[in-house]
């Protein structure tokens, strides 16, 4: 597939402190997704990521960043804020999963119900959403994506390079496995060749 001539690299490196990460910090492959909770393509990618994670185990680190396109998806920002509010209570991935498993139900009262289901402190959750406490962080995720060449969702980066191929299971797994073997045999950055 074609690539744009600029910005095919992740400009904001994955940070264990800042990012929502699953998998070991020293995994040979890091997969970053820029996603929107209301985007149907992201919804389609969600079970594929799960499958890839199950297959690769501790050889894969996965990070998720917010890229809500509210112009197309009116509930996307609020859903992203709900995930971030859950994160402050240590339940980011549980909320992330609930949101993708219930993509068509992302109204405020749905989000609140998910918070209840996860046993979150609802008072705190409500307050953080009402005051948009996490809006700046979500915008920071979004802009880091724009500057890295994200042009739609979902967008994937494998060890910092944009994955411009399909995210269908076998294609994605092959690309990740290739990166994993490349990373173990050669610790320097891979050459910037276009595929």
């Amino acid at each position, binding site marked *: 597939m*074609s690539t744009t001539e600029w910005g095919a690299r992740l400009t904001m490196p994955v940070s264990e402190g800042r990012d929502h990460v699953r998998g070991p910090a020293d995994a040979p492959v890091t997969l970053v997704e820029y996603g929107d909770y209301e985007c149907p393509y992201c919804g389609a990618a969600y079970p594929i990521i799960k499958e890839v994670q199950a297959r690769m185990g501790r050889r894969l680190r996965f990070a998720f960043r917010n890229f809500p396109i509210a112009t197309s998806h009116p509930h996307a920002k609020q859903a992203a804020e709900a995930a971030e509010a859950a994160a402050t209570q240590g339940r980011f991935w549980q909320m992330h999963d609930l949101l993708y498993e219930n993509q068509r139900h992302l109204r405020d009262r749905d989000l609140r119900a998910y918070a209840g289901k996860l046993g979150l402190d609802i008072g705190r959750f409500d307050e953080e959403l009402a005051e948009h406490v996490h809006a700046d962080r979500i915008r920071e995720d979004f802009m880091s994506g724009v500057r890295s060449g994200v*042009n739609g969702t979902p967008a994937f980066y494998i060890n910092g390079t944009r994955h411009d191929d399909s995210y269908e299971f076998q294609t994605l797994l092959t690309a990740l496995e290739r990166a994993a073997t490349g990373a173990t045999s050669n610790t320097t950055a891979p050459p910037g060749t276009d595929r």
Partner: protein
Amino acid sequence: MTSARANHRTGPLPPGTEAPDLELLSAPGRKTSIAEFQGRPVILAFYPADWSPVCSDQLALYQELLPEFQRFNAQLLGVSVDGIWSHLAFARDRNLRFPLLADFEPKGEMARAYQVYRAEDGTSERALYVIDSKGIVRWSYVSPASVNPGADGILRALESLGMEGAS
């Protein structure tokens, strides 16, 4: 002004070229031209057609980025060969709040002037221009029609203008 057929090179007008100024309908009874925004940078986003999936994603992304463009005091204008009524319905349906110019009659006149008309398809290329506050092209880019070019190139071009348009 640069004539539409002044040179025969392929590809978009290069940096340093004076941006052709045309007046196109942007709403029923409302004409818009680049000269209107003199003193501010202008981002021109040529796209092949209203309603096609890639266009919609691309323009939705730009809508999200309007506050970033405003930091540079830049005006975003979308351009396609669709008529004004299609633009109006499209903008309403997709929540787009920036002008869409109808390059409709004579068809593709603006796209031709900017050397991004695809005669074989009867549409424009998917092309981006950043024009400075004095009406000079500072950056141009043509993307493969099916590839959403994103916005990083636009932001880089605006940054390289050095905030000249900011008041």
